[in-house]
Each structure stands twice: as structure tokens, then as C-alpha cells.
């Protein structure tokens, strides 16, 4: 119905007569619907396909209807707490988020500072860049044994894995941003004799801010990837361990629900960092 209303009105039959009526006002609902309809349709189609594939005899995974029936408590009440590890998903997610917040915060501070150093000092760049290029390719979980050996406790080990996973993109993007401060801005600074710390604060940092936030955004995504995997091995309260625990008790429906939550939270984290970046770098992106 709404799709019809957005179509251009048919041309008047008699062109010689001036049309004095006001133009039809575009419906405000139509664009919302145009954005909302495709994902909803695709989601329904996907759920339908899943239901069909997982309902046959010999299917190994539960269909959506079974997930809903099995894990109804888990879906509708994320806040229950029956002591021990028997908690709602909210508490598991909160524990994971806490680790990510701490690890990512350290990675942000260390990453930006190191990136600034590498970006400004050619010596630091030549010395550190090759090492970083190698270290950043090490998979997050490969750090875990070393980390456990060093800290001898699960909590700091998990936080270290988050840190070491997310620090590389922050370092590298910050360094690139600092090195790519446009010559125009450097010329302006030279003419008004802006040097040293003032040059750094007033020109370099704002010019590099979009790059820094790109690094942070990649970093938060990697953190979330790493925490789920790390918690599977570490145990305790956390969404990763929840998934592992459900697997051990053959509770596949709970795993499906947890994965949906993991995805939604990861999406939310990405959007939060992107939003913070837009606020902090307003005006800088387009010039």
C-alpha cells in the first residue's frame, strides 16, 4: 500500500492546463519500511530454511521452534541468578563485557601512545614496526598459555589476551594517522610557528583522530572475538564459558541463544565505538 503511494503521480492527460494542486507529500512511513522490510523478509526466509533443514530425520541441530521451546527461560529472563554458574545470560555477558572493557581500555591507552611514538619517531618506527607486524598475526588464543603461565590466574590472563589482541590495530592505525597529517596543515603550522607540544596537540592529534578511531573500532571487534574463545578455556562466569558448558551438557538450544546474544552485543560494541568516533572527530572527516 505504502509502496504504491511513493510512485510518481501519473502525468496529467492534458499538459496544456497548468496543474495548480500541491505536489503529493512523500509518506514518512515509506522510507522506514523500505529499510526495514528487506532484513525482516530475509530473516524470516532464513528461519524458514533453518526450520526445514533441521526438522528432517537425522538432523543434528535443533530447529528454531525447538530452540524457542527448550530455552524459553533463558530467552525471556536474562536476569535470573540461582547461584554458582547457573545465571541468566545478562550476568554472563556482563562478566565478559567487564573483561573486555578492562583489556580494551588498556589496549586503547597503550596502543594510542605507542602509535603516536611510532608515527613521530622514525627510529621507533624502524625498530618496532617489524616486530609488531609479526606479533599482530599471532592468533589471540595462542597467547593464552603464556599468559596463564605468567599470571597464574584466569582473570588477568583473559584480560591480557584481550589487550594483546586489540592493541595492534590501534597502534598501527594511530601511527599511520600521525604520519599522514596533510602537508597543508603542516604548512599552516609552520607559518604561524606552531611547534613542539602545541603542534602535537593542535594539529597532529586532531588530524590523526579519524585513524585512531578506526583502529579502536577494529580493536573492539577483535576483543569480542577473543573473549568468547578465551573464556571457553578459562572457565568461570562469562558468555564463552556458558557456551562451552552448554556444549558439555549437550544443550544445543542454549548455545544458539547465546550465539545470538554474542552477535548482538558485538554489534552494539562496534556501534558505540563508531558513535564515539563520530562525536570526537566531527568535522574532521570531510573538509
Amino acid at each position, binding site marked *: 500500500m505504502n509502496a504504491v503511494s511513493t510512485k510518481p503521480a501519473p502525468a496529467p492527460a492534458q499538459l496544456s492546463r497548468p496543474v495548480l494542486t500541491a505536489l503529493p507529500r512523500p509518506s514518512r512511513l515509506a522510507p522506514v519500511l523500505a529499510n526495514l522490510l528487506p532484513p525482516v523478509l530475509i530473516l524470516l526466509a532464513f528461519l524458514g530454511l533453518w526450520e526445514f533443514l533441521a526438522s528432517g530425520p537425522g538432523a543434528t541441530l535443533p530447529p528454531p521452534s525447538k530452540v524457542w521451546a527448550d530455552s524459553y527461560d533463558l530467552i525471556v529472563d536474562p536476569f535470573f541468578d540461582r547461584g554458582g554458574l547457573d545465571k541468566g545470560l545478562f550476568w554472563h555477558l556482563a562478566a565478559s563485557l567487564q573483561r573486555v572493557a578492562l583489556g580494551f581500555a588498556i589496549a586503547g591507552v597503550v596502543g594510542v601512545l605507542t602509535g603516536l611514538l611510532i608515527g613521530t619517531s622514525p627510529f621507533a618506527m624502524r625498530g618496532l614496526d617489524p616486530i609488531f607486524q609479526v606479533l599482530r598475526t599471532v592468533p589471540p588464543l595462542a597467547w593464552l598459555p603464556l599468559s596463564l603461565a605468567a599470571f597464574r590466574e584466569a582473570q588477568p590472563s583473559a584480560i591480557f589476551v584481550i589487550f594483546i589482541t586489540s592493541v595492534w590495530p590501534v597502534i598501527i592505525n594511530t601511527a599511520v594517522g600521525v604520519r599522514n597529517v596533510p602537508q*597543508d*596543515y603542516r*604548512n*599552516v603550522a*609552520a*607559518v*604561524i*610557528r*606552531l611547534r613542539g607540544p*602545541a603542534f602535537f596537540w*593542535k*594539529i597532529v592529534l*586532531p*588530524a590523526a*583522530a579519524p585513524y585512531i578511531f578506526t583502529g579502536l573500532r577494529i580493536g573492539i571487534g577483535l576483543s569480542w572475538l577473543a573473549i568468547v574463545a578465551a573464556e571457553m578455556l578459562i572457565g568461570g562466569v562469562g558468555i564463552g564459558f556458558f557456551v562451552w558448558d552448554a556444549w558439555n551438557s549437550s544443550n544445543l538450544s542454549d548455545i544458539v541463544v547465546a550465539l545470538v546474544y554474542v552477535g548482538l552485543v558485538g554489534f552494539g560494541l562496534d556501534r558505540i565505538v563508531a558513535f564515539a568516533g563520530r562525536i570526537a*572527530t*566531527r*568535522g*574532521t572527516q*570531510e*573538509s
Partner: protein
Amino acid sequence: MQTDDRFLDISQLSIQFPKSPVPVLRQVDLQIARGEYVSVIGHSGCGKSTLLNVIAGLLPATAGGVVLEGREIDGPGPDRAVVFQNHSLLPWLTCYENVRLAVDQTVGRKMGRAERHDWVLENLALVHMSHAKDKRPAEISGGMKQRIGIARALAMKPKVLLLDEPFGALDALTRAHLQDQVMEIHASRGTTVVMITHDVDEAVLLSDRIVMLTNGPNATVGEVLKVDLPRPRDRLALAADPVFVAARTAVLEFLHARHANPALAAA
């Protein structure tokens, strides 16, 4: 007076980039008087902008040098404020803050807070941009950005104002409007101006003298034309003025008959 005639003294200036076998500019000699408006015109690639960058101190001279008011130039500084071709406003600062940063760094050191504030507003008013002082560069048009660039340069109270094709990227109407404003400012502040341009009408309308460069590389001053027109100048009245037309013809003749663009000739 000797120093007033040779306020800005470019002597035997040659510039060669490290990787190039021939110099960009060769033995450029030019004396500019205090308060004079001089345009430098030439085809693309003749080294006009290079010359301006050397005066600004952003590029070093290979041989020869530039002396401003008895002191040799050895680096950039606010006494030679530049209005860049692409405005070069800092996009994260508002128009006011862009000018304020320049003021704080230069002439503002001897002023109080309130005085700085007033001085920034005065310069924004000079280019008729008071209404947009709290907007960011991305929110205003190209002509407005260039006006803020001019305000920023003037706010440093420069001895010489260097304009690097300041109106090149603007449409014809905006350009004419800004040219008139620059003429007004030149009249009211009496600033010495060196302007790089490739627009013949602009050069004749604004300048006291037009310096024509031969084709690059290895370019030098081909001819200097004095534009003997009284100020204030009015673009409409001048359109048919014989002196204006003669000057315009002379520059066109230099650029297109005697020193036609080699790149275009080959094409």
C-alpha cells in the same frame, strides 16, 4: 626611500629540486615596494607556486635569496602570511577558532584575552564573515572558506600577504566578489601583496605590477608590466578603459604568442 622600494627583495634566486637536472626557477630578480600589489602570472608548471613557497620560507632557495625589510628569509613566519590555494583551514576548528589559533600564536602574544577576541572578530568582519564565525569549514562554501583563509592571514598583521591562486577554485561570480574585497582590504590596510594567478583579468584588475614568468622548467622573469590605473578600480568602468585593455592584451600576448604553453602545443 631605499628600503621602501626594496621592501621585498628577491635577488638572483634559483631553485632546483634534488632529483631534477634543471632548476625550476633560474636567476629571478624582483624588487617589490612597500604597499605594492604584485601578481606573478605564467603557465602551469612554470614555478609560480614554488616562487611563492620560497618567499613564504616553506622551501629553501638553491641559490640567491629573498630579503624582507633588510632581513634574509630563512624559514616560514607570520610576517609572510599565506592564503593557500585550497584554503587549508583546520576542519576540526570553527572559523573563529581557525583565526583565533593564528592570532594566539602570533600577534596575540602581546594582547590580552579580550583584545585578542576583538581582533579576531574585527578580521572576520573585514571579510564579511562574522555571521559564520561558529561554523566549521565543512559547513560553508568554497568562497567563504577562502575568506576565512584571508582573515586568518590578515589577522597575523603580516608585512607581506602571499596569495597562492586564492580564487582559482571558485566560480566566476564568487571570484569577482572576493577580488573586490581583496582590493578594499589592500586599500584600507595598505598591506604589501604578492599574488600567484593564472587569470589575466584578475592580474590586471588587482595589480600595480604584473610579473610574467617564462615557461618552466628553467623559468625566469620574462617581462614586468606596470598597470597604470588609478585606485579604487571598478571592474565595470575598466572593461572598456584603453589602459586596462592594453595591459590585458600585453599579458595575453606574452602568454599565448611569445610563451605559448608547451604542454598544450604538443597536445
